[in-house]
């Protein structure tokens, strides 16, 4: 048994230590907003926060997450949408939507660390794959979220 703190809740999970955090979140805890895309940290669909930092949970053994605050897409807003989520709606970003949990988690972590990233910094930081090609809207939505956060 391992003890994890996910979205502020502490829980015991039955999993081998080398199980990727992704599968514990999805199959053991049934928080399915975090997605499986590649299993090799290449696409970012599984992005969650460990103590506020974006990580690709398909490649983080669950044992490494013990003692950290794990935040998933389900845990980023308390009833009210975040600026990033609002911007995602106003710029009409998602198409199939499968990659967007990971995108939103990656962007949220970026903006926490760097509230006004340049386009170059965005390019370097947000390397997630979207197969529907929502990138032009993602870029606009990031700038919009920066604005919304500034207004808040």
């Amino acid at each position, binding site marked *: 048994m391992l003890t994890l703190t996910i979205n502020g809740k502490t829980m015991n999970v039955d999993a081998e230590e080398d199980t990727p955090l992704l599968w514990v979140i999805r199959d053991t805890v049934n928080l399915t*907003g975090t997605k499986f895309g590649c299993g090799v940290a290449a696409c970012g669909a599984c992005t969650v926060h460990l103590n506020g930092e974006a990580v690709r949970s398909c490649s983080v053994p669950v044992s490494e997450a013990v003692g950290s605050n794990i935040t998933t897409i389900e845990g980023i807003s308390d009833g009210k949408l975040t600026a990033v989520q609002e911007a995602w709606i106003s710029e009409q970003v*998602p198409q199939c939507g499968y990659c967007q949990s990971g995108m939103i988690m990656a962007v949220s972590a970026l903006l926490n660390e760097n509230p006004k990233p340049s386009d170059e910094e965005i390019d370097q930081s947000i390397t997630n794959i979207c197969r529907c*090609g929502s990138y032009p809207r993602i870029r606009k939505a990031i700038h919009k979220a920066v604005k919304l956060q500034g207004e808040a």
Partner: protein
Amino acid sequence: MAIMKLTRRKFLIAGGLVGGGLAVAYALGDSVPDNKALVSSAKQGEYPLNAWIKISKQGEITVAVSQAEMGQGIYTALCMLVAEELEVDLALVKPEPAPVHPVYANVVAIMDSLPFSDGHHNGEATAGAWAMKQVGGLLGVQATGGSTSVRNFWEPMQQAGATAREMLKQAAAINWNVRADECIAENGIIKLKNGSKSSTYGDLVEQAALLEAPQNIQLKSVNARKIIGKSQQRVDIPAKVTGKAEFGVDVVLPDMAYAAVKLSPVFGGTVTDWDENAIKTMPGFIKAVRFETGVAVIADSFWRAKKAVEALPVTFDSGTNVHLSSKSIFALFENNIESDDGRSYSDDGDAKAALLLASDVHTATYKAPFLAHACMEPMNCTAKVGDNDVEVWVPNQTSTLMSWIAEQTADVPAENVTIHNTFLGGGFGRRLETDYVVMAITIAKELKNRPVKLVWTRENDIQHDMYRPAALAKFSAAINESGMVSAWHNRVAGPSVTRSFVQRLIPAADTDMPDNTTSEGAADIPYQFENKLMEHFPSPTAIPVGYWRSVGHSYNAFFTESFMDELAWTAKKDPVEFRMAHLGEHDDFKNVLRKLAEVSNWGSPLPAGRGRGIALHESFGSIVGQVVEVTIGPNKELSVDKVTCVVDCGEVLNPDGLISQMESGIIFGLSAALFGEITIENGQVVEENFPDYDMVRLENCPEISVHLAPSGRPLGGAGEPATPPIAPALTNAIFAATKERIRELPLSKSEYSI
């Protein structure tokens, strides 16, 4: 694996499928289909008014959407059409997946893909198309593909909304003892015209549901529209920013088990031996399953199933395809293309004779590789097989086909099959296939009455796809003294998607027949040449091929629009003017081209190292023109700076939705042009995952601007038509910048780095 039995009904479907079609038909009649299809799905207090609309006593409006939502925004599009006629705000309409029922079938998909149809030029007017519509009406297949959803459902959805509106008016009229035409519908309320009385839809629906659907209903006039033609916020987006949207892979059921598979790496290989005892003590192990092409482990979590199946000792017999390679496949194409076995799809004048007489013949050879779909959501399917029933949760593009496959594989009566549709994490044609559904049910049969969720890894997905066919084209053309193409001969060799698809479905079917997915985008180009011949040289291989976003257009547009560009440069003409000069009476194409030249600043000077390229292509009833601007560094560092796109798809339902589909199609095609290649070595796929099957990301995504140029053409599609022109527009831009002509994709083959 189960093989479908050849019942008469299913054999007729094969007949329907041979044209390259996926879907058969919507039962076209003079009135809106009644509410029978929805009665079973209606909850307490909810009343179906026809096959598409349910309204609850609280006034909640639910629209049954038969089309798969895979990112294209169809939930929004179809709800818009209903909301418009029903006189309600779009926000008040909730979509839900329609049940599997013939009334929801898609007729445009089949009509578009007939071997004897002439694409956009004749469309529905051909006798074959008409006949297929009648046959299709008897069969009724629900499918999402071929960029057909809005085209097929525009009028039926409007009719459904209008019929419901009139029934609500009638109910109010009876209550108030007035004529229905004295009532008006407004914002979910029926009012008496003089304003003295009003009732909400919720108050009226129980009575309205008992009325007979009225005939010959007048749809709203174009001027009275409030929703159609205006950009709307997508109805599915709120759930997609909170993680609440449920995709197939997210299905969670009580007592659910998980399955992972190991499949023969070589196409056609089979399992000859295994040692299931070796893994029985692994954590969470439930059961191992052996089937023809691979093995599965069922465990209490996906990760444990995956670990166990990786540890499971298996011996495969590679079969007869072990020597197959990309090289041998292209050698086959080269060989076939020189044979006399070409199938002619377009033949004007006498191109061969004209070329023999020409003093100067320009020739070129083009190649396009196999491609995988790589949907973000890997293939998955959850199945629960009972004693005499089967229940399936599957993100799919054709629930009718899935239900037939489930019936056959589980060997249960048709009426005991339930298919649950979910959101699709991408489709692109991959989810028209049934392989992963057959696999899931085969595995779940081993664990009766317990749901089993099969999830493929990304490696399973990349290595066991139904690929976009590789293809080879050889062109010969002559240009006369006025700089016009006097003869054009295009030979294309490659496998047929339709043949491969039908063979998978019905192995006994005779599939050696014309397939216009091999010629689309090559035989039906708009350019007027005095002598034109387009031939396809069927070249089946053991690599399974399938429908990949824009299908044959995806490679034929690269071939034809690149070669057209070569001819323009050879004739020393501006590529836009050269195209314009060959467009004859096609005013709609000229309109797109003119607009594109204008909005892209075509002809304005660019600094050294930069280039601009153009491509113009019609597919799925829509004309799309694109101009790409590139910058090339001294060591072939390529930057795709900007894409300008002009589209004419006829009347536009949701402008922002159309723009997003253009952006999406461009980036999808760009990923393929830059990086996309599935390589075959030793009968298997070399690539495994995104690191070696890469995609465009934010950092290399160009700026994209989309312009709409509706000309009044009939409705065209939106999901696919932006994909075909991007590759040739890009390589034409590279030529303009460097004078290097790219004749083989992807660009990484020509040593460009991105």
